[in-house]
């Protein structure tokens, strides 16, 4: 089999993969989306190794949107950025379209089209689809809210505290961790390991390339900081903590279970032998000191402070909406 194509690897590339005519048939069926696979095509490999693979070489949140650099795109083709909360095939919303002009394309789309509560509190995902090509590529980032701790100092379930939007879906019970909103919640695979147990559970069950972990009791984490954290993670895919003090804190960016190459076991990374509890140590140098306020609600007094801060913010925003010029916007 010889393949000639602008999309082929070219340059005399060859392999030693065993092909039959069924491989060609399966390839054609893939290209045209014809199912079911006919005859032996059901059991055959395809010719995809002979083609260039669409790849995302970098992906990051920016202040204004979501930026991807993609290689092996076809100039002139329209690319679609789509957003989904559950990865269901019928549930992807287009947030931007881009026409590639060169094979190495950086595309940026506004994240304002994404409902903010979903962006900040729900398990979410982004993918980029090249229509017209027979290939699809996804970049998926999960967002996971850790809730349901024992809340001993607080005296009430912190997963049910609410400032504005609810932090998680449903009503998490104490003793459970890692309940991504929008995808239900799950009991920890390893109980009583604190937030690390929740992170571990989410990673083991993740369908995403990366996971961003938020704590349900940190209501003032800024979207900009989350963007910076994800950007740093994509530059170097290792677990990253937020460092407010000397000890690591949430939010955390870590590998998801979606891609095997990044499927490092976060719990193994974090837990030193013998600790066996939520006492975590930073596996890598923590991220730079973040901007904004990383307030952690631990006790009733903290909750009062948080509510006062929230109310004051709401008033400032309302005033800005009423009189944008006076407030300097």
């Amino acid at each position: 089999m010889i393949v000639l194509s602008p999309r082929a690897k070219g340059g005399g590339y060859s392999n030693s993969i065993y092909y039959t005519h069924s491989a060609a048939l399966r390839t054609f069926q893939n290209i045209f989306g014809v199912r079911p696979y006919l005859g032996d095509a059901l059991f055959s490999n395809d010719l995809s190794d002979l083609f260039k693979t669409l790849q995302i070489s970098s992906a990051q949140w920016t202040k204004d949107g979501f930026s991807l650099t993609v290689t092996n795109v076809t100039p002139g083709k329209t690319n679609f950025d789509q957003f989904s909360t559950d990865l269901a095939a019928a549930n992807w919303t287009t947030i931007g379209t881009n026409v590639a002009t060169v094979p190495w394309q950086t595309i940026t789309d506004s994240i304002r089209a994404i409902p903010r509560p979903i962006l900040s509190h729900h398990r979410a995902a982004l993918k980029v689809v090249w229509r017209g090509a027979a290939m699809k590529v996804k970049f998926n980032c999960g967002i996971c809210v850790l809730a349901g701790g024992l809340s001993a100092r607080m005296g009430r379930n912190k997963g049910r505290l609410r400032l504005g939007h609810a932090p998680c879906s449903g009503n998490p019970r104490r003793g459970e961790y890692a309940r991504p909103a929008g995808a239900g919640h799950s009991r920890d695979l390893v109980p009583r390991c604190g937030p690390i147990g929740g992170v571990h559970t989410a990673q083991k069950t993740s369908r995403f390339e990366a996971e961003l972990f938020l704590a349900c009791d940190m209501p003032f984490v800024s979207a900009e900081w989350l963007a910076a954290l994800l950007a740093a993670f994509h530059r170097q895919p290792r677990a990253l903590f937020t460092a407010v003090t000397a000890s690591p804190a949430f939010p955390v960016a870590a590998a998801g279970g979606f891609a095997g190459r990044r499927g490092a076991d976060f719990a193994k990374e974090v837990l030193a032998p013998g600790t066996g509890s939520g006492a975590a140590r930073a596996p890598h140098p923590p991220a730079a000191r973040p901007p904004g306020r990383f307030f952690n609600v631990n006790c009733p007094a903290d909750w009062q402070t948080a509510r006062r801060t929230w109310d004051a913010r709401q008033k400032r925003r309302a005033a800005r909406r009423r009189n944008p010029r006076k407030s300097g916007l």
Partner: protein
Amino acid sequence: MADLSGKHQRDQYSGRERRQYLARHNPFVFFDEVRTNLAYCTNHVRPYTELAADLTNNTVARFNFLTPNLTNDMHSAATGGGVPQKSFRGTDGWAREMPKILASSAYSNGGAIFIGWDESTEVTTAHLA
């Protein structure tokens, strides 16, 4: 086949002589949808000579199956009624025809050409059909 309706399969790499054409080179005429529907068959199974105009006008079907005739199928000259030394004609034929496809916008706009052989265990003895 039903899902591939609207795509054309083309045969007769060189259609000068009718006896050069063999149904065994064209798998599509064995499908019931083609075999029992004359209009569908004649609309989709076309002489190779029509491909050049389609390439020029950018009206090429999404799927095109090109198959050689007896002269150009790279089998030996001793059987099949073709003219001698056809293995050379096979390779020469592709060398002559391929640039037309490679120069078309259908190809440059994300197209792909798959060249397959059969009856071979190694490339050096392969046949085009």
